[in-house]
């Protein structure tokens, strides 16, 4: 695991169910995430679209698919540039940009992740995830001063 490592892509065919399920799973009742007429006529977009908290969940899944269950997210930032609609095939791609051990001995991997549809960059995400230093280390056991996300 080192800077420059490329994560495997994740592709997913987004449907209306994807969008509605994601909105309800995050308790987001706003109509642009389940009501086609509201989205097209009020928001002026072509369909309902993925909400931000559900995109965060997609980023989390992408990161921990790669690290496995011992990977512990410390920090995640993202910015949305364009919307993801039913009928889109979204692709998450990412790479390692830094690996460092902090003063408490916790190993941090910094990732840059892009969620895109065809040639559209829809969201970009920076994630900082703790991974075990050795087979005896478990980032989830860290508390207090030993956990500096």
């Amino acid at each position: 695991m080192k800077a420059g490592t490329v994560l495997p892509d994740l592709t997913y065919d987004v449907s209306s169910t994807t969008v509605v399920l994601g909105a309800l799973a995050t308790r987001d009742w706003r109509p642009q995430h389940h009501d086609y007429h509201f989205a097209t006529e009020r928001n002026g977009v072509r369909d309902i679209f993925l909400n931000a908290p559900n995109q965060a969940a997609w980023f989390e899944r992408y990161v921990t698919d790669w690290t496995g269950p011992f990977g512990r997210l410390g920090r995640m930032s993202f910015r949305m540039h364009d919307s993801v609609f039913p009928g889109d095939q979204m692709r998450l791609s990412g790479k390692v940009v830094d690996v460092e051990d902090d003063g408490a001995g916790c190993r941090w991997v910094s990732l840059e992740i892009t969620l895109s549809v065809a040639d559209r960059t829809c969201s970009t995400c920076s994630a900082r995830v703790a991974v075990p230093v050795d087979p005896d280390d478990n980032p989830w056991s860290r508390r207090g001063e030993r956990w500096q996300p």
Partner: protein
Amino acid sequence: MSQATDLPDEVAGWIDAVRYEETGDFPVERGYIWTACASVENGNPLFWDDKAAAEITGGPIAPPSMLSTWFRPHHWAPDVEEQRLPLQVHFDLKDRLDLPEAVMSDNTMTFHEPVRPGDVLSTRQRLRSVSPEKTTKLGIGRFWVIDVEYHNQRGELVGVESWTGFGYRRDGEAS
């Protein structure tokens, strides 16, 4: 972000002040955790396999990215006539600064103690900064940063969400 020096006294007084301390409507529960995992097909055994969760995280936990889920108000509840807004400081700023439009541009989540089923979380909002007026392609307005801090029932910090918003007036709109 540079700090504005021309803010109304009331708004300037909000910076770094704790506001809107609230307790969640319901305890963290596994049904919602499974629904959230299903929505993104997240098969992480921490959320599905009690044995793995016991060994790795000392018992079941919620996906960290669900932080804000536990605080979105019910769509309906008895005796509640006005729907609460999830980031009230943002709407206060729009109102007091007379900036009718707003967008959220960035969201950063920092995760501390894991959130576990049965936890009852509390939240509070803290305005961190408001910029001087700026002109963007959207219009004239100000950027602001609001932190939402989440604690569990033991008073432990479980996470902080930091939102960057831009409140603005469209070109030609009177202030």
